[in-house]
């Protein structure tokens, strides 16, 4: 509010000193028409220029830039998503491959195990058969030997009896006696 007060003061001062060009220039009414005419021409042209050229053009420039930046950001986001997708696909295929290799290893192990188990079974069966065979043979031999024992004992008993008594007993009697003695 100091400025208008100052001006009024200066205005009065200017008006009181009409030595240079009459009254105070801003209040010389005969210049108003000319000033208003040129103001109308220049400001009118400026307004036309602003409304038709400057404001639409700058608005377009700024809008285009905002759109371009927005599009670029969207594109970058899409690319990032794509890269992430590719990363996930890679991880997935890697996991798949790992699972597959593990499955193959497992399968191989199982086949090998089954194979060796089968082989072991045949070998064992073979061995068991051989063992049984041998055992049977032993039993047969033992039985045979045992059957000879009786005859030998009868012979020996006969010989002993003939030595002691001087008469040879009937072989049938010795055999019978031996059999009884042996608990047969």
């Amino acid at each position, binding site marked *: 509010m100091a400025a208008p007060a100052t001006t009024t003061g200066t205005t009065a001062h200017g008006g009181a000193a009409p030595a240079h*060009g009459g009254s105070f220039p801003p209040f010389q009414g005969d210049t*108003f028409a000319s000033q208003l005419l*040129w103001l109308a021409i220049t400001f009118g042209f400026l307004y036309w220029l602003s409304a038709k050229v400057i404001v639409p053009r*700058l608005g377009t*420039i700024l809008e285009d830039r905002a759109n371009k930046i927005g599009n670029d950001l969207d594109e970058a986001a899409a690319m990032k998503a794509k890269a992430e997708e590719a990363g996930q696909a890679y991880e997935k295929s890697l996991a798949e491959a790992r699972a597959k290799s593990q499955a193959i290893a497992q399968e191989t192990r199982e086949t090998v195990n089954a194979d060796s188990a089968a082989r072991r079974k045949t070998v064992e069966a073979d061995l068991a058969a051989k063992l049984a065979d041998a055992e049977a043979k032993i039993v047969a031999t033992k039985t045979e030997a045992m059957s000879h024992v009786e005859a030998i004992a009868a012979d020996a008993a006969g010989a002993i009896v003939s030595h002691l008594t001087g008469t040879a007993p009937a072989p049938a009697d010795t055999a019978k006696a031996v059999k009884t003695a042996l608990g047969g």
Partner: protein
Amino acid sequence: MASPIEQFEIKPIVSLGKIGASEIAFTNSALFMVAAVAVIALLFVYGTRNRSLVPGRLQALAEMGYEFVASTVKDSAGHDGMKFVPLVFSLFMFVLVCNLLGMIPGAFTVTSHLVVTAALAAIVILTVIIYGIAKHGAHFFGLFVPSGVHPLMLIILVPIEVISFVSRPISLSVRLFANLLAGHIALKIFAGFVATLIFAGGWIILSPLPLLLTIAIIALEFLVAVLQAYVFAVLTCIYLHDALHPGH
């Protein structure tokens, strides 16, 4: 020593005849109005001719100016005030460039004449009144009737509101005119002191003092030149807000 008000004299360059007592001429004032429009056109039309995505120096300056006006309009007058951007832009740039051209030594300051600032203020107020009535009809006059007030109070308040509305164009024009006029006169007087002291014998020792003051006033005047253009534009936006949204 020239008078401090000599710089405001309107001098015809080419006379174009007379209407009554008024001489119609291409004057120094007209020359600077044309120069201001030429500077604005150079910056905003030539500067943006490439419509570059990445702006050059002139285009960056033009964009700054436009964005400043557009954001001022949006903040003060609202989003539906954007149709007034060309008007506010023209007013702000015209006042700003005229003020700044006036800071060139020896140049004429168009905005130091009340008739020019009054005409610019009249453009604003007539726009407000015509647009307000065209858009809102009688409702526009609700501007003068504060809502939620006792009817008896309105007897006092309505005349106050009317006076405040009528004083708007006056304050708008006088503020700009007075600031520019007073600043240029002060500048001329203090600069004149320097010359006077230099030719006043022993007083020459004191001459640096008004010189320093002159330098300070020049800085202040640049601030005033920009600030007054800004104030003019902001007040225009606030008045346009009333035209768009009458009623308190």
